[in-house]
């Protein structure tokens, strides 16, 4: 069972993390290529507090606040740039985060922080906490989607300038999306730290940021259910396809490419087309039947 618990926990954390990016990128349309930095901010906060004997549950809000504060700063800066400039700026933030963490002995430098105390809830208990938090945020996401805030997000994602001309304070909304999204990534980070019991700079780099963006886009940008499914699947896919060994990453990237090529609106779009009455060529999504 233990192995399944580990997988489920990994899935739940990935789902939470992916949903946090979905809030920014999917809902509000702000592409981020550096989201792992906020996962890292949360993870480091939680790890360091835990090592200072702060109980695990208290480190979660602390991680959220720390990541959200960083997110607010980055969000303010990001208001100045748009579209592809924003994408590359956020990518830069990711590199900067890792670059700074790497050089500071305070954060454990290159070596990272090991020996993070366990959550104290046992493996099963910890898994339940992760799942509960992921589901809570999923429910929150679904709710926000229906609220006026979600309505405005949709409008901003669609066309920022038009939204502004409709009398809406676009910057404020974007900032809120950033703060909620990065704060949630911080929570995911706290869980990450207590799951792997080890954090290091390489865990929060560009590759991680790209993976989470891939989860959001493969799921179907903005679609909560799609993102949940994709994050759960992609986070454990490397485990599930161990048997193809040498071709694992090739398979993974090939799947990603095929998804973009044949169903750019992700799994969510694929499902919509599958279940809509219009018959249409349905691309194969790699046959991930388990």
């Amino acid at each position: 069972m233990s192995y399944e618990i580990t997988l489920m926990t990994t899935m739940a954390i990935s789902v939470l993390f992916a949903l946090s990016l979905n809030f920014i990128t999917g809902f509000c349309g702000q592409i981020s290529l550096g989201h792992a930095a906020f996962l890292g901010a949360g993870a480091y906060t939680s790890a360091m507090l835990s090592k200072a004997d702060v109980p695990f549950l208290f480190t979660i809000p602390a991680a959220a606040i720390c990541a959200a504060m960083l997110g607010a700063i980055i969000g303010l800066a990001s208001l100045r740039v748009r579209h592809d400039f924003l994408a590359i700026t956020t990518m830069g933030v990711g590199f900067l985060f890792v670059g700074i963490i790497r050089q500071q002995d305070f954060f454990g430098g290159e070596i990272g922080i090991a020996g993070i105390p366990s959550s104290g809830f046992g493996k099963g208990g910890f898994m339940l906490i992760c799942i509960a938090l992921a589901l809570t945020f999923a429910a929150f996401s679904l709710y926000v989607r229906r609220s006026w805030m979600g309505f405005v997000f949709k409008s901003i994602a669609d066309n920022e300038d038009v939204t502004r001309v409709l009398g809406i304070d676009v910057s404020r909304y974007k900032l809120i999306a950033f703060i909620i999204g990065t704060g949630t990534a911080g929570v995911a980070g706290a869980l990450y730290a207590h799951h792997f019991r080890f954090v290091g700079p390489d865990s929060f780099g560009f590759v991680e940021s790209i993976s989470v963006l891939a989860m959001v886009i493969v799921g179907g940008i903005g679609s909560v259910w799609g993102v949940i499914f994709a994050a759960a699947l992609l986070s454990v896919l490397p485990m599930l396809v161990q048997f193809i060994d040498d071709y694992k990453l090739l398979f993974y990237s090939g799947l990603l490419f095929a998804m973009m090529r044949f169903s750019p609106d992700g799994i969510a779009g694929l499902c919509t087309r599958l279940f809509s009455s219009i018959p249409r060529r349905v691309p194969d999504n790699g046959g991930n039947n388990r």
Partner: protein
Amino acid sequence: MTEILHVRDVTVRFGGVYAVQNVDLRINNGELIGFIGPNGAGKTTLMRVITGIVQPQSGRVFLQGVDITDKATHLRIRAGLALAQQIVQPLRALTLLDNVAIACGSDKTRHALKSMWVTDIRSERAQARELLARVGLSHVVDELPGTMPLGYLKRLEVARALALNPRLLLLDEPLAGLSQKEAASLADLIATLNADGQTILLIEHNLREVMRICPTLYVQDNGKSLAFGKTDQVMSDPNVRNAYLGVGHA
């Protein structure tokens, strides 16, 4: 007659070139003013100064007596401006109805955090339905903009601007790109809106329609005010004729 908009001595330079130079413009409540001028006259620039996309080097803009020169675009909108843009920009992921409904909900979107706690959209949709009916789009409210012809989208722009309940409606070339028939019918709509009490500043190239519906004209050329007054008087002004015919105008 209360003054709605006052553009006072506004100058905009891009690099060394004057786009708008010492321009004055006043609009009173209930007016429909046609804003014309040849290409490069600085019409769009002035419009952008009013909406706050371009900051003037000198001069002020007042809306209902309040200086809005330093305010952000969205605050000007909330102060009573609305804009229908030259290039139609519908929100493509939203139905026509929701395109208008989001503008109707400006009370609900004023405070970002509070907007999270509100989900009810029925009254805004009802209002949006009325507005779309008013511009003649009641039969396509649930369609996505992507499938609509240009004429419909132009009307959508107008409906969306109206949804903001503006004191002053800015229309930037709403007739451009439309067939003669479509243009005439949209022009009729604009005239009707004005007759219902809506103050409108209409930038337009289509002189025929402008002259038909606008009692007052404002003409700009090379960034300078050229004429302002009753339509027939302005059109008989030799300076204006020169500017349009392009003869001997320096």
